């Protein structure tokens, strides 16, 4: 983005405060353009012909520094790139790193289909939703265009996920393109030897293409410049991912340099970057070490600017951390992550089980929940809506009050008197001062728990079940 203040964006808007975009004023809309929570096309008046020039100017000013590239079609389209900052707390990173897992054309058909299914079906519940992986990369290991075409065809039949066609042989890539027509696959890759032919294929089939220049940033930039002159900006840059030693250090440096140059305004190299942690398998013989190092390299380049990556290990111990670190880095650090307010069951609680609450700040909630679950304490746990603020701060700031707690309990449909035998609530030690108020509001027996949910197990041993009064 070439501008960073709402005022700069405001100058281009109609300034009528018409409200069509859902904001009260054009200024408010402008500030959402800057934080990228609204799109310029949400402003319908500016799309009118008389504003054409302003629209185009503002659109160019708002375009992200790193170009956005689309792979795949329809609901499964994957977006990569589109970033504006080097440090996520300044704005957030957009378009999560896309994780592609490989299949190869010398696999037998049954294994290939099974592997594709494993990749597309893998899922892990996390903060209210499932984490999944994104793509299949088809590697040509046969050097046979017909064989490659057949494998690509099989993959296309088995999954709607976006695909990457991997070969340095233009004839092989062409066969892959024919077998995946209409699916907008990513071509991998043009290099210093085949760039003319692969470039022509990319233009002919109108698909995005990866440029591969291992550890040679001059060549990489020169290829990007050439492809742009040939007529395409749908480019992904692969500066080479070397898996070990000083070569890996150099790879790290290359990634930082390419992204910094792009964000600093060098348009010739402002494209999404690809990492290939797969190469860890070229350095380690035993599959556990190879998987571990692949995950380690993937983590480094999820954090440092890899927009898309090709991986091999489909072991859960590799995929789970890869999914989690990706989610971690692409969480918007400016907004607290929340869970839906409401009553949750931990384990298999009965009417005799304890009843507790915490806030709907995801970190607090999941900490408390895991402290309870890992100690096998079956209980009822409310997440009270505090706008995603932790207990201590919410008490101080007034987001957690007896009235709010009462409201949260009532809205969850849980009735303390009917649904428990004890009519008691255990409250977090950090809101001990609300004890009396909560008693008044709810009519329950309020017990003050420990300040840290890590101490709940010991506390439960001493204090639960509550003594009959």
């Amino acid at each position, binding site marked *: 983005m070439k501008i960073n203040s709402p005022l700069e964006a405001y100058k281009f808007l109609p300034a009528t405060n018409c409200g069509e975009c859902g904001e009260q004023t054009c200024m408010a809309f402008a500030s959402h353009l800057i934080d990228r929570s609204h799109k310029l096309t949400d402003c319908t008046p500016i799309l009118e012909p008389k504003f054409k020039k302003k629209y185009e100017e503002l659109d160019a000013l708002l375009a992200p520094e790193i170009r956005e590239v689309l792979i795949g079609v329809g609901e499964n389209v994957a977006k990569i790139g589109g970033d504006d900052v080097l*440090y*996520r*707390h300044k704005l957030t990173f957009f378009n999560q790193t896309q994780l592609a897992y490989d299949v190869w054309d010398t696999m037998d058909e049954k294994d290939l289909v099974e592997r594709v299914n494993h990749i597309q079906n893998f899922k*892990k*519940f*996390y903060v209210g939703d*499932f984490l999944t992986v994104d793509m299949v990369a088809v*590697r*040509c*290991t046969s050097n046979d265009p017909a064989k490659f075409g057949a494998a690509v065809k099989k993959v296309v039949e088995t999954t709607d996920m976006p695909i990457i066609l*991997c070969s340095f042989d233009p004839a092989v890539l062409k066969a892959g393109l024919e077998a995946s027509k209409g699916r907008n696959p990513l071509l991998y890759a043009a*290099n210093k030897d085949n760039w*003319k032919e692969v470039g022509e294929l990319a233009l002919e089939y109108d698909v995005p293409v990866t440029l591969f220049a*291992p550890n040679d940033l001059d*060549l990489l*930039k*020169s290829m*990007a410049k*050439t492809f742009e002159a*040939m*007529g395409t900006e749908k480019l992904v840059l692969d500066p*080479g991912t*070397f*898996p*070990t*030693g*000083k*070569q890996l250090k150099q790879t*790290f*440096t290359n990634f930082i*340099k390419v992204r*910094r140059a792009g964000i*600093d305004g060098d348009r010739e190299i402002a494209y999404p970057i690809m990492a290939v942690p797969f*190469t860890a398998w070229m*350095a380690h013989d035993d599959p556990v070490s190879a*998987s*571990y190092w692949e*995950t*380690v390299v993937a983590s*480094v380049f999820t954090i440092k600017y890899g927009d898309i990556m090709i991986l091999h290990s489909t*072991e*859960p*111990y590799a995929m*789970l*951390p890869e999914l*989690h*670190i990706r*989610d*971690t*880095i692409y*969480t918007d*650090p400016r907004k607290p992550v929340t869970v839906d307010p409401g009553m949750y069951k931990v384990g298999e609680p009965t009417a005799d089980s304890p009843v507790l609450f915490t806030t709907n700040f*995801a*970190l607090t909630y*999941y*900490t408390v929940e895991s402290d309870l*679950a*890992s100690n096998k304490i079956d209980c009822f746990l409310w997440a009270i809506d505090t706008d995603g603020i932790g207990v201590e701060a919410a008490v101080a700031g007034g987001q957690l009050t007896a009235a709010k707690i009462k409201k949260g309990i009532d809205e969850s449909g849980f009735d303390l008197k009917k649904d428990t035998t004890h009519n008691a609530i255990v409250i977090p030690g950090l809101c001990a001062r609300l004890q009396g108020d909560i008693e008044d509001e709810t009519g329950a027996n309020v017990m003050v728990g420990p300040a840290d949910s890590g*101490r709940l197990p*010991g506390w439960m041993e001493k204090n639960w079940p509550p003594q009959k009064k």
Partner: protein
Amino acid sequence: MTKKMKLSQLSDMLQDLDVESLEGVTIEGDIELNISGGGGLNPALAYALGSEISQISLHMANIGRMLGFPAEQLFASAFGMGEMPQPETLPTSPKIQELLASKFEVAKVDNWKNPIQEVTLGATSGDGGSRKSTVTLGGENALPYYFDAEMPHRNYVTMDVFDMPIGMAKSVKGNYEDVINDPAEWAKKVVREFNADMVTIHLISTDPLINDTSAKEAAKVVEDVLQAVDVPIVIGGSGNPEKDPEVLEKAAEVAEGERVLLASASLNLDYERIAKAAMDYGHVVLSWTQLEINAQKELNRKLMKQCNVPRDRIIMDPTTAALGYGLDYAYTNMERIRLAGLMGDDELTFPMSSGTTNAWGAREAWMVSSPLKQDSDWGPREYRGPIWEIVTGLSLSLAGNDMFMMMHPTSVQVLKEITQTLYGSIESEEIDITNWIGAEV
């Protein structure tokens, strides 16, 4: 009067016309070609004349084409050249035959002007202690491993030892069952077998809610550990804010001169007592806050201004959340702290430490399988746990963390290898990846 012009002059003039400058050119009046001499031209002259005229007509045709007239078609129909290959039409997309030259350049960051404070842990006999080696943290002038400035010190790992048996994930426990009742042997084991750079002795039995071990007894354990190993040590309390000041004071006393790291001073306990103990007996203070940059500034400021702790005796612990359990905040918090430090916030220019062992709190690290039926199979937990600790630590190392408190031997080994690889001190065989696509794996 009409100016006369030779044919060759006209031809030259037209030849010299730059096509791009033709915009706005007008051709006025008639062009009269007066070829004198009748039919008796000598063949050489006729050929020369023919050549000139053809040249002119070509230029004229070009002008016609630029004006939008399909001159090629006229030529083709006039001379029956329909079958001839057409010359290149409008030059919109010439085939590029060579890569366009471009040189990659990128600037170094110019606003990282404040180096991170160097802090040394451990004291050798020359400095009044009994450690064989010391560890120096900090000194960075850039984000970790960045090319902007040399990173003076690598990352270090201190491994956890407890003064009593504790609950541990199964794959961690397997490594310590033989030493779990003997902190000194435990300490020896992590240094000798697991390559720990330092040892952290956690005096958790002192917690009144656990064993309420007295400060004096706890100090004895510290003495044992100091005798058992010759690397620098970290002394941790139980985390009980009432008891910790007393425990750490006593521990600081018996460790006098060893320049240990006292863990921790925090805003919710009497940090002045801990700071004083560090000053009195020559130690370093761990300034611990919970995921809040302003609280970290406040505590550091209090330690410096109110307790007179010198800058080279403070390390920060801004709190580590496990991968999937708040690491997004921990990462951002650390990265912001480090960037602020490098850019000149001198309340934040201190080395950082991470309780990376917290990663074992994540259920993905220790649980046998997912409690959720809809989840895909999680696979064997003995492989999941260590990678959880590695990825947690690795992320924070990239955010600027200098020292890791860790637990699992495999995690320690892999984390040390990747951080030292990025630091630049790991040699390994070069790997040719130019044809990785065809690799048989």
